[in-house]
């Protein structure tokens, strides 16, 4: 039985806040990749990063709620959805590349006024 960690200790030593912090940062990095990079492939990777970030947060909460298996179950579902997303998304990317032979998302901007 140890003393509860203080806030900054938790950040460094792996308390709940530390995992959350890592999750948030990873999410933001993924988001910025999507927003700032122009390549489809990199944007896709950004999306994968965001999925992983929420996985971290989910499992961290799962542990601090007493290691319940529900969190792991939902993690499994998320992985399933991510796999689907990867399959369909990559198929779309291939198809778009065929259309304009570029992976630059900005050039696929036909849907506008």
């Amino acid at each position, binding site marked *: 039985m140890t003393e509860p960690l203080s806030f900054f200790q938790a950040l460094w030593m792996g308390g709940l806040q530390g995992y959350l912090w890592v999750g948030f940062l990873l999410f933001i990095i993924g988001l910025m990749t999507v927003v700032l990079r122009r390549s489809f*492939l990199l944007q896709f990777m950004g999306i994968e990063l965001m999925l992983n970030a929420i996985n971290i947060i989910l499992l961290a909460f799962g542990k601090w709620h007493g290691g319940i298996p529900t969190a792991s179950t939902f993690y499994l579902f998320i992985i399933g959805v991510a796999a689907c997303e990867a399959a369909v998304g990559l198929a779309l990317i291939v198809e778009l590349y065929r259309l304009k032979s570029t992976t630059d998302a900005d050039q696929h901007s036909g849907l506008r006024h």
Partner: protein
Amino acid sequence: MFLAFALLTLGSALAMAFQKNVIVAGLFLVATFIGVAGLFVLLSNPVSAALQIIVYAGAILVLLLFVIMMLNAHEEEPPQEDLYIQRYLGLGVGVLMIGGSFWFIKESKLLQSLSERPVNQVAPVSLNHIGTEMLSHHLVPFEMIGLLLLVSMIGAISLVKKRL
């Protein structure tokens, strides 16, 4: 240990985000996934860590790298126009979100009370637990995920294949 894995995760994620070459970015993504898997182990969740390695670092990444190789577009093309509003606004929002989340983690009373729970005695989640949980309480979502995978497989094939 936590710090090492966290740094591995975030560092390789950042490196991925700033990488010019897509293949190298993909490899950094693998490193990120491995870091995340490490974090999962520290969260006393070895099953998830194994799944992370198998599915993400194994399956999805291989698929992604396949596509990258196939498309033969390793470098990002030069931008057609400089969208500086997009860039600076995006960066601003990013900084704002970092600040906001930090403030949220620091100030939240709920998190504080939650984090003070004892976690040392928490037993690692075993595959047994997950299986029981999934097939007893979440049977319908489980089936739906299976169906979704099937549908997305068909969808991906029908999208890419030119003539069915």
